[in-house]
C-alpha cells in the first residue's frame, strides 16, 4: 500500500508543480478585475503606441532626407519612385472618409499588415546600409533602431488589439487574421529585396505615416475622451 502511494503522490506533486509553473507563466501579473493593480488603460496603451509610431516615422523621415542629401539621386527621382512599393498590395484608405468608413477591426488589421510587411525589408535595409561607406554611424544606428522599432510597434499594436478584444470593442475575428496575415506573401518579400535603398526609404516613410495616422484615428474613435 505504502509503496503504491509514494510514486502516486510524487506524480501528483510533479503535475502540480508543472501546473503551477504554467499558471504562473501564462497568467498575467495583473489579472483583469484585480483591485490595487495598475494595469495600463487602453488610453495609455494607445498613447504609448502612438508615441512609438511617431518616433518611428521621425526616424524614417530623417533617414530619407539624409539619403537625398548625400546620395543626390538624379533630379527626376526626387520625390518619386519608378516602382511600386512592395506594400502596394495592402489596401489602405487614402483619405479621411475612407479611413473613417473602415471598421475598427479592419483598420487594426491594416496596421498590423503594414507593420508585418516591413519587418524583413528593414533588417535587410540595415545590413545594406552598413555596407555603404558614406553613411555615418548615426544613420546606421537610426536604421538599426528603425528595424527594431517596427518589431516592437507590431507587438504593441497586437497588445492594443488584445486589450480591445478583451474590452469587447472589436470582435475576436481579428486574432486569427493577424496570425495568418502576419506571414507576408513571399512575393512581397522578394519584391522588397529588389528595391533600392532609396526606394525602400521612400516607401517606408509613407507607410510609417500611414500607421501613425491610422492609430490616431483608431484611438480617437475608440477612446473618445474630451475631443481627442
Amino acid at each position, binding site marked *: 500500500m505504502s509503496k503504491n502511494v509514494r510514486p502516486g503522490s510524487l506524480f501528483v506533486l510533479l503535475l502540480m508543480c508543472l501546473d503551477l509553473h504554467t499558471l504562473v507563466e501564462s497568467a498575467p501579473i495583473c489579472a483583469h478585475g484585480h483591485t490595487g493593480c495598475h494595469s495600463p488603460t487602453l488610453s495609455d496603451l494607445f498613447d504609448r503606441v502612438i508615441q512609438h509610431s511617431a518616433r518611428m516615422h521621425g526616424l524614417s523621415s530623417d533617414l530619407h532626407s539624409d539619403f537625398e542629401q548625400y546620395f543626390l539621386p538624379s533630379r527626376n527621382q526626387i520625390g*518619386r519612385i519608378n516602382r511600386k512599393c512592395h506594400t*502596394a498590395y495592402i489596401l489602405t484608405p487614402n*483619405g479621411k472618409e475612407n479611413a473613417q468608413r473602415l471598421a475598427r477591426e479592419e483598420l487594426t488589421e491594416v496596421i498590423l499588415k503594414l507593420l508585418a510587411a516591413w519587418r524583413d525589408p528593414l533588417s535587410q535595409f540595415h545590413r545594406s546600409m552598413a555596407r555603404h561607406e558614406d553613411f555615418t554611424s548615426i544613420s546606421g544606428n537610426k536604421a538599426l533602431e528603425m528595424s527594431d522599432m517596427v518589431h516592437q510597434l507590431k507587438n504593441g499594436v497586437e497588445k492594443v488589439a488584445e486589450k480591445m478584444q478583451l474590452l469587447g470593442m472589436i470582435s475576436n475575428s481579428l486574432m486569427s487574421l493577424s496570425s495568418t496575415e502576419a506571414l507576408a506573401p513571399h512575393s512581397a518579400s522578394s519584391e522588397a529585396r529588389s528595391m533600392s535603398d532609396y526606394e525602400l526609404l521612400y516607401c517606408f516613410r509613407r507607410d510609417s505615416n500611414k500607421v501613425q495616422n491610422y492609430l490616431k484615428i483608431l484611438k*480617437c474613435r475608440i477612446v473618445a475622451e474630451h475631443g481627442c
Partner: protein
Amino acid sequence: MMSRDSGASLILSLLISAVLDSDGLSPPGKPRLTSCRSPEKETFTCWWEPGSDGGLPTNYSLFYRKENSDTVYECPDYHTAGRNSCFFSKNDTSIWVNYNITVVATNALGSNFSDPVDVDVVYIVQPHTPENLTVVLEDEDNPFLVVRWEPPRMADTRSGWITLIYQLRVKLEKEEEWEEHFAGQQKQFNIFSLHSGEVYMVQVRCKPDHGFWSEWSATTYVKVPDYISRERSIWILIAVFSTFIFFVFIWTMHINRNSVKHFLLPPVPGPKIKGFDTQLLKSGKSEAVFSALVIQGYPPTSYYDDLLVEYLEVYDNKEQVLMLDRKDLQESLFKSKSSSDTDSGRGSCDSHTLLMEKCVEPKEDQTMMPQVKDSEASRDLVMKNDSNTPESTNVKTKTWPTICSSYHYDQNPCYHSIPEMPRQCHISSNHFASTHQQDYWESPADIYHKKPPSGYRYAQAYSEFNIKGIALKEATFPASKSLEYVEVQHVNQENTLILKPIGQEGPDLFHAACTGHDYSRVNRVVSDNVFLLQRDTSGQCHSDCQEREAPVRSCTQQQPGKPADHLQVPRVQETHLAPNGYVDTATMLSY
C-alpha cells in the same frame, strides 16, 4: 501632292511666324508651379506663375498624373482658388499618393510646358490660423492672462485626422520684440508677470506634426490694470523694515558714539609721567607742573645736589657756574657714554655692567680728544698714547675711575646695584693699577697732559689745562692705590693748574687724606682767583706745603680753625663723595 501641301503649309507658317515676329509675338513663355498647399489634408491647391505671354492671349492648363498610373487628368477647378491656381477637391485628392503635376501655357503660336512637380499631399499641409483667440485677465490682485483659442475650422482634429501643435507670442504694445511660447497640443495658455498698466498684444499660430506653420492669427489686445504686484509689495515691506532697522542702528551708535570712537580709533597712548598734569602744562604754569614731578626724598638727585652744594658753598659767585658745570659734567659723563653708544636706554643704569663699561668708556672719549680744541701738547700726548692703545686705555681708565669710585654710592640712580659697583670698579681700577702700573709710571705726564674728561671741556676754554709733568711725588703713589683723584698741586704762573693724582682708598675720601695720599682741601676762597688750601694737620698726614703761585696761598695762610669752619660744607655722610674728590680749581682759577 502631300509633300507639296506640307511644304506649302510649312512655308506659310514660317511666313506667318516671321510676320508675327516682326510684330513681337511669340509662343508663351514657360510657366512655373510655385507651390501647392493643403489646409486640412483633404484638399489642396496649386499655384503657378505664368511666363511671358508672347503678346497673345495665353491659355493655362494644369495636368496631373497619379502615382503608377499613366492616366492624365486635368485640373478640375481653376477658379475657386483664384487666378493661376488649381483647386483639388476632396474627391480628387488622394493622400499618400504621388501627384505629378504639369502646367501648360498655350497661345495661338504654341504652348509651353512647365517642369513637372511631384506632390504628396501629406507633406504639404499648411493649416489656416487658429480661431477665436480670447485673452482674459484673471485674479485682480495678482493678475495673469489666460489665452484661449480654437483650431482652424477646416482642420479635423477631433477625429484625429490631423494633429496640430500651437505657438503663441506676446509683446507689450510699445516694445519691438515678441516673446514666443510653445503651447504643444493644448488650446490654452497662461501668461504671468505682467506689467501693470500696460497693453499687451497676443498672437497664435499652429502646425501639423509634419507640415508647415500657419500664418499668425489676428492680434488681440488686452490692457492690464494698475496694481501693485505682490513681489513689489514684498520689496516695499523689506525696504521699510530695513530702513527702520538702519535708523535704530544709527541711533544706537549715536548714543554710544564715544565707545564707538574708542573702538574704531583707539586713542594713541601718550607719555605717562606720574604726577604730570597735562592740563596744568597747557595752562602755562610750568613751575607747578614740574614741581609736581619732583618726588621728595628721591635720593640720587638730592644726594648729588647736596654734594654739589657741599662743595659749592666754598666758592663765591662762580658757584652757579660751577654748579652748572657740575651738572653738565654729570651729564657729559653720562653723555660720554651715549656719544658712542647707540642705546640710549643704557643711560638708565639698569645693569651692573654699566659702570664697567663706563669705566672703560673714558678711553673712547679720550681718543676723541683730538676733535676738541686742545693744546698741542696734550694732543701730542694723546697721539703718543694712542700708539700703545691698550695701555693707554688702561691709563686713561685710571683717570676716569672717579666715576666708578665716586658713583658707587650716589651718582648712579640705580640703587639696587650700588653695592656691586664699587667692588667692580674697585676691582677694575685695582686691576688696572696692578697690571699697568708701570705704564702709568712711565707716562705720568701723559695723564696730566691729557685733555681732561669731556666734562671739563669748557674748563679748557678758560685756561689751558696744561698739566705738566712736574715732579710728582712718586713715592706718594703706592702701587695698590687707584688713581681716582687728581689733586691740585699748585698753580703755576701761566694760570695752569698742576694737579696730581690722588690715591683713593674708597669711601673715606675725606678722612682718607691721612692714609698717605696727598691732597689738599680748599680752605676758602679769599678773593678773586684766590683760594686757600687747608693743610690737613690731623694725624699723620701732612700736606705738602708747596710753593704756589701768587694767587695761591698755601699752608702759610692756613688758618687755624676747625676743619669744619674752613670747609663750611655740611659734612654729609662720609660715604658720600663728590663726583670728584677734588676741587675743580681750574674753573675757579679762570675767574
